[in-house]
């Protein structure tokens, strides 16, 4: 069996297995084991692609190149660490009576199916299958957001379902339009017109500009809803804050990345056809809007998970902005930012999950004195916030710096709102975090059993990426940058 098949089928079968045994104590361990196998296969596949170049599967249904292989590895990795975190966390939730046995089975099964759908979306060559996988990702997580069955959770899940449903339907229409343009160029008798490799080759000859523009607009609205671009972001704070914490971690850390990956793949097609930078400008506009609006909304939040969800929106806006600029330096920075944001945000959500368990509430004004009660959690939250706010020496600083430099090169005036946005977000995060971590702990607050290993691993990785990007990783990003923007930044 090829490595790709292993990477895809193991989570799928793991999910099916967990649908049956997901309520037993061993289910958590099965989850972790599946994650280890998936990650191992993904890493091996990455090394192969790194050595031998892009791989196309025999049926041409799957295509692994430098861009998506690193996302596959990232997805598998964060999926693994979050499953390590989720094992004791969900056991604690079951003990507290917030999750029944049936729902635990659903949770474990859907967790692996969700990972499967994301890996499928990342590795497929067919734009239609990409859409199907994205919709599958939404469908698998919808029931998980409402896992706790409170009215707020159900409302959040409904909003998530409806808004993402509308968005993804627009994306389907955009896919149909791309197929339409491609068919009129390539002729209707082929059955491979929706394959990205074929489209990328044909796009050089020029697909019809009017159709491609219209298609990109629909796809931007569609996949942009899933990325959380303002003004299509309304579902994001609710969905990320109401579900169980491992869910928030993977949604924030992974699904947004996959949606943005889909958008960038389409942008590559559009750029080859259009020869103007319309797609890039649109992405820059939406990205900048998300970045500024989310930074402002950060301040108003009273729920810690909602606050960090807005931080996710802000960072995804920044990454979209970076991809929109299109220059090699900006693309490199955006790719790096995708990685470090993923790692940091999932670490933060894990810490926040433990903090909420400690304090018994998700409200910021009622969480106090974390560092006194359980220093591991307090330090974790402090360092995580420092990292996500863009402090050196963490990796986020490097990627933000690269993006700033790229903006200064091509769009000097836009660095001003960027800097202001960084400052606003930093102020908002710290204002809330400072009271939570320091401050007088309420009486009777006891430490909880917390598995901080994933957090430590993630933060160490982010620190490492901030201090010195290892050579193979740098060359990996460079290959992806060449693929996306056509030139090398180094």
């Amino acid at each position: 069996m090829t490595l790709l098949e292993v990477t895809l089928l193991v989570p799928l079968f793991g999910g099916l297995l967990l649908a049956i045994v997901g309520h037993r104590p061993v289910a958590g361990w099965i989850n972790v084991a599946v994650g280890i196998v998936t990650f191992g296969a993904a890493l091996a596949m990455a090394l192969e692609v790194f050595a031998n170049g892009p791989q196309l599967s025999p049926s041409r249904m799957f295509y692994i190149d430098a861009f998506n292989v690193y996302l596959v590895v990232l997805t598998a990795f964060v999926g693994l660490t979050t499953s390590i975190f989720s094992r004791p966390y969900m056991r604690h939730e079951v003990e507290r009576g917030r999750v029944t046995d049936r729902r635990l089975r659903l949770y474990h099964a859907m967790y692996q199916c969700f990972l499967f759908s994301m890996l499928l979306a990342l590795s497929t060559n067919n734009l239609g299958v990409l859409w199907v996988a994205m919709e599958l990702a939404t469908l698998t997580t919808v029931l998980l957001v409402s896992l706790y069955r409170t009215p707020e959770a159900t409302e959040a899940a409904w909003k998530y379902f409806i808004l993402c449903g509308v968005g993804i339907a627009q994306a389907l229409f955009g896919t149909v339009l791309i197929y339409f343009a491609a068919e009129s160029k390539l002729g209707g008798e082929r059955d491979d017109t929706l394959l990205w490799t074929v489209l990328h080759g044909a796009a050089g000859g020029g697909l019809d500009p009017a159709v491609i523009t219209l298609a990109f607009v629909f796809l931007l609205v569609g996949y942009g809803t899933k990325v959380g671009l303002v003004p299509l972001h309304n579902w994001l704070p609710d969905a990320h804050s109401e579900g169980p914490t491992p869910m928030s971690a993977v949604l924030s850390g992974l699904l947004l990345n996959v949606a943005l990956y889909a958008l960038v793949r389409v942008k590559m097609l559009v750029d080859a056809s259009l020869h103007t930078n319309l797609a890039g400008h649109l992405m820059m506009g939406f990205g900048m809007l998300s970045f500024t609006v989310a930074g402002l909304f950060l301040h108003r939040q009273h729920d810690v998970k909602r606050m960090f969800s807005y931080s996710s929106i802000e960072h995804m806006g920044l990454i979209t902005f970076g991809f929109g600029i299109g220059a090699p330096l900006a693309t490199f920075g955006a790719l790096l930012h995708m990685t470090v944001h993923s790692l940091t945000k999932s670490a933060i959500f894990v810490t926040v999950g433990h903090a909420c368990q400690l304090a018994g509430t998700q409200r910021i004004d009622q969480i106090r004195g974390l560092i006194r009660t359980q220093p591991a959690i307090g330090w974790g939250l402090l360092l995580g916030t420092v990292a996500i706010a863009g402090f050196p020496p963490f990796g986020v600083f490097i990627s933000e710096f690269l993006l700033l430099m790229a903006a200064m090169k091509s769009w000097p005036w836009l660095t001003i709102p960027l800097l202001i946005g960084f400052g606003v977000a930093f102020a908002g995060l710290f204002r809330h975090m400072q009271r939570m971590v320091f401050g007088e702990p309420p009486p009777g607050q006891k430490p909880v059993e917390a598995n901080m290993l994933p957090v430590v691993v993630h933060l160490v990785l982010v620190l490492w990426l901030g201090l010195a990007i290892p050579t193979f990783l740098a060359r990996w990003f460079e290959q992806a940058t060449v693929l996306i923007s056509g030139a090398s930044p180094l």
Partner: protein
Amino acid sequence: MGIASLGLYSQAIILFAALALFTSFIMLAQARMMPLIFTFAWQGLLLAVVSVLVAIVSKHPHLYVSAALTFALKVMVIPWLLYRLSVQLNMQYDAEAIEHPTLLLLGGVALVIFSYFVAQSIVHLSGLATRNTIAVSIAIELLGMLLMCARKSAVAQVIGFMSMESGIFFAAVVSTYGMPLIVELGVAFDVLVASILFGVFFFHLRDSFGSLDVGQFNRLSEANQPMPVREAAGGGHSAGDHS
């Protein structure tokens, strides 16, 4: 001259497409649950018939499969699921209060004009005789979206979603003779799973909120967030409401 120069089958395609658009309008203004589901089933039937006609005119046999998929899903399975749900939730005779139905219909007309302009820029690419129906398919999709946005009943929103998806499928049929089979099967599978999940959701919503009126779902809106509690001297410790 336009339509008079086409063959009978092509005229029939145009006629059924226009009727499907008409059903979209009816769904916009239809407040009662059962007729709404029924009209949705009619729309599915009309679109399946159009797929068959396009298959005959253009001699693409795999469109028969598309038509069968549409028929099975949109005419049989999904309306039956919705009907059963309404009966189980005891709301089959419910009617929601639509404010300004006439405004809604006029908004729909505006969307049809808009989709005509959108389609004008792209129809020159199509070689089909029925390329004018691309505008109708875009209109059906946008009207489905209007149905989702403007209505307050959860069932109406679900029907709007399914109608949107019908419109997109229809767009694929009339512009490109359908999409590759694997994509169509995948989309159909997604729609089926989505409809099942919607059904599950209706029960959750009814249990949590006591009604399926979307206007009631507003606990999470930014304006309704509870204000921060002032910190007392000894520090308060709330009974765990969320975490």
